[in-house]
């Protein structure tokens, strides 16, 4: 069974600084997708970024980028120029396309951006 591990329960960063959230996963599949979702206190789960496993190029979305290391099964999220609005719980998630598309989530990392 696939598992997703986020080893940092809590992190904090100063506004305008850069922070990296870690995620590792375990799978024997070769065709899968990885996601980072953000969940602010309002509880709405918001997609941050998506990475297809077959793509070697790391995905980027404005201030958010990933470091995808397929051999190491590592998928970290880097947030540049952190803003107060980035304060939220961040979840790493794995999707095995051949298993119908369900998401398997990590335990989450609570990020606090301090002024």
């Amino acid at each position, binding site marked *: 069974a696939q598992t997703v591990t986020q080893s940092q329960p809590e992190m904090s960063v100063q506004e305008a600084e850069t922070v990296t959230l870690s995620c590792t996963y375990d799978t024997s599949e070769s065709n899968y997708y990885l996601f980072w979702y953000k969940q602010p206190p*309002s509880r*709405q*789960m918001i*997609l941050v970024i998506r990475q297809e496993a077959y793509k070697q190029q790391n995905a980027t979305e404005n201030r958010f980028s990933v470091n995808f290391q397929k051999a190491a099964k590592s998928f970290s999220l880097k947030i540049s120029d952190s803003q107060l609005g980035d304060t939220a719980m961040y*979840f790493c998630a794995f999707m095995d396309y051949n298993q*119908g*598309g*369900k998401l398997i989530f990590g*335990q989450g990392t609570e990020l606090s951006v301090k002024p």
Partner: protein
Amino acid sequence: EAGVAQSPRYKIIEKRQSVAFWCNPISGHATLYWYQQILGQGPKLLIQFQNNGVVDDSQLPKDRFSAERLKGVDSTLKIQPAKLEDSAVYLCASSLWRGETQYFGPGTRLLVL
């Protein structure tokens, strides 16, 4: 484009009572998911629909939980009877098709006393 809608946002019930949650996915999305998120944990899939058929309900406690998706659009999730351990946030998500990016609703927070 309207997002995924869920109601109610909050619900407090006594144990052994029943409760129902409603979800309206993004228009045109064929796949609908219900996740349970216990405090301090990541969401876990309860059930997945493709149009109005069930794709995966392996993690649904079928002795007390039921779900349906009539006409392949709206969905309801029911708990009867509720237990204390059912206290959680219930998230609904939808995607265009299986394997596509999922978009989540605001969730329903359930407290069972």
